[in-house]
């Protein structure tokens, strides 16, 4: 069951939450809406669910117009950040709720309800806790109940609003993998809202990056990570250093060095912004042509397989961050206060918006 969103617009008072957003979610895919808070991702999800009306635009489920369909007729599953479990009902009754509230003629018999609820609880590995109250469960268990409850009504699409946002980092990671496996098993079209880039990149088939009510880029996790389309995406995914400098005939001047700026051969002394990922640099004790930037080591965090260094650029006095493999660090053996040379291996240059 695919979802097609066309030209959606939504404002809360003077604040534009969604600005002409269009989005296609192919059937069976798991798509992540990724963005900082206030980017409109949750609003988009709630409008797809029917919990919020749109000011303009349309929503189609599998080609069928659902724009004006009331929420209870849309047959969506919704998982809330804070679970929203019915606190006075047992786990079993929570999951059974969607089946029990059906009109009498569509309501399955009690034995069937029992069977399908237990099957779902089995799927989320909570069958032994069927009689417990939500308050007796851990956060991770609660969210799995919420998922089983959403799946119980056999939804056409599954919508998840920051489902792991309220959980500990470790549980979050576990549930993320588990959700991925679950999706492979159930294969229901799913939209996941998150502000956690790692979560989005790891779980989804496709990532849609949102900012200020607009979609910045959408693509597979590899695409958006390796080829960020806009400065925002570049800055949002992964640790990145940002430099302001002039672009001139395929080179950009940053931090006292001249670095290649691919795709800018025709530029004539233009203002630009260069992005360098923290791990896309090489470190040396001597300069490499005129491309390397001279810096002083300010701080070293040397644990794990990757060593992180904070460097003060000699020219301009800016601070940048670099990550180098442990063995390289050990052969170089730089110390705090030492002079080093940084060679960016991959620079992405965007024109500077004069307005901002």
């Amino acid at each position, binding site marked *: 069951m695919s979802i097609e969103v066309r030209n959606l617009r939504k404002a809360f008072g003077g604040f534009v939450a969604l600005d002409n957003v269009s989005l296609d979610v192919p059937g069976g895919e798991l798509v992540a809406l990724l963005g900082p808070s206030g980017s409109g991702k949750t609003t988009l999800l709630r409008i797809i*669910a*029917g*919990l919020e009306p749109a000011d303009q635009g349309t929503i189609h489920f599998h080609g069928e117009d659902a724009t004006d369909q009331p*929420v*209870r007729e849309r*047959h*969506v*599953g*919704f998982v*809330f950040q*804070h679970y*929203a*479990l*019915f*606190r*006075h009902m047992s786990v079993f009754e929570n999951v059974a*709720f*969607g089946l029990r*509230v*059906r009109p009498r003629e569509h309501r399955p018999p009690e034995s069937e309800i029992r069977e399908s609820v237990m099957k779902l609880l089995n799927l989320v590995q909570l069958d032994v806790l069927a009689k417990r*109250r*939500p*308050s007796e*469960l*851990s*956060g*991770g268990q609660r969210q799995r109940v919420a998922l089983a*409850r*959403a799946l*119980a*009504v056999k939804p056409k699409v599954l919508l998840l609003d920051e489902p792991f946002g309220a*959980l*500990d*980092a*470790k*549980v979050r990671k576990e549930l993320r993998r588990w959700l991925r496996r679950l999706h492979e098993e159930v294969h229901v079209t799913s939209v996941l809202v998150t502000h956690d880039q790692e979560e989005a990149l790891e779980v989804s088939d496709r990532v849609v990056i949102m900012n200020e009510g607009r979609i910045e880029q959408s693509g597979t996790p590899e695409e958006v990570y390796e080829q960020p389309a806009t400065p925002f995406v570049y800055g949002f995914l992964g640790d990145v250093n940002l430099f302001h400098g002039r672009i001139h005939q395929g080179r950009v001047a940053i931090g006292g060095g001249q670095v290649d700026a691919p795709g800018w051969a025709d530029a004539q002394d233009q203002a630009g912004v260069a992005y360098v990922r923290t791990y896309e640099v090489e470190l040396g004790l001597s300069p490499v042509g005129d491309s390397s930037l001279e810096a002083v080591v300010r701080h070293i965090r040397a644990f794990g397989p990757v060593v992180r260094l904070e460097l003060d650029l000699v020219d301009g006095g800016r601070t940048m961050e670099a990550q180098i493999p442990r063995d390289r660090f050990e052969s170089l053996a730089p110390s705090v206060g030492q002079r080093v040379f940084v060679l960016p291996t991959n620079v992405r240059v965007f024109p500077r918006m004069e307005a901002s």
Partner: protein
Amino acid sequence: MTTLAVSRPATSAPRAVTRATGESPVVRWTLTAIALTFLAFTLVLPLALVFHQALAKGLADYWQAISEPDALSAARLTLLVASIAVPINLVFGVAAAWCISKFVFPGRNLLITLIDLPFAVSPVISGMIFVLLFGAHGWFGPWLVAHDIKIIFAVPGIVLATTFVTAPFVARELIPLMQEQGTEEEEAAIVLGANGWQTFFRVTLPNIKWGLLYGLILCNARAMGEFGAVSVVSGHIRGETNTLPLHVEILYNEYAFAASFAVASVLTLLAIVTLALKTLVERQQRKAAAEPVETHDTTGGIIA
């Protein structure tokens, strides 16, 4: 992510610092003694006196006072009024709390203020309002007279005045509770296909039941005990428009002290039963409120 393991050295030496909010025994005992003395004089003594006075002339007279026709009629009227006013306020209170806590609309703050109005004005004035509206010389007086409808100095007036005075209890109890609970559970129910009534009866109502019961008990206590407003609109017609509190006053004014206190003791007993119920409900409510406490999976470094 990094995890910080917080460990405390295992010392058994006595601590020099006590809890910041602790007090020395002298202060504690003095404060407790003052509170208890105050309670004894303002609450326990009067209460004991009521029963002492009521039984001053013996059990037979006591029984006589509370079983004579006028007293029985007053008791019946009190129960009747409560049994009408409380359900009205149940419906009104739930509806008002629902509107205020689950929706944002223009005039919302005005509605919150209006709900408190009966608490803010003196009950006597509340009674006067109804006399001004429905009395023979009031706004609707001529029309009511023409249609032979009696409100003031009759049961409808007493019900109206009582309902007005007790209106805030249920709503006031529910608004903060429902605001705290938010609308997520209702949203979840609707997404799962529940209609409005199903959502209300299966999700909203069970979540507020203890708070609602608590509000109803308080509302009922006030409805049975209301004096000022009812006194203004009742007309004090014995056997007809006298409620228990009014009956107590009449007997007292007639120097029938023992009888007056006997009837008063019945009201007092009702109040004690109400208090007991209230305590029971409060306990349940606290248990229900304690339930959604967050429990975390990992044993993070909790600094006690």
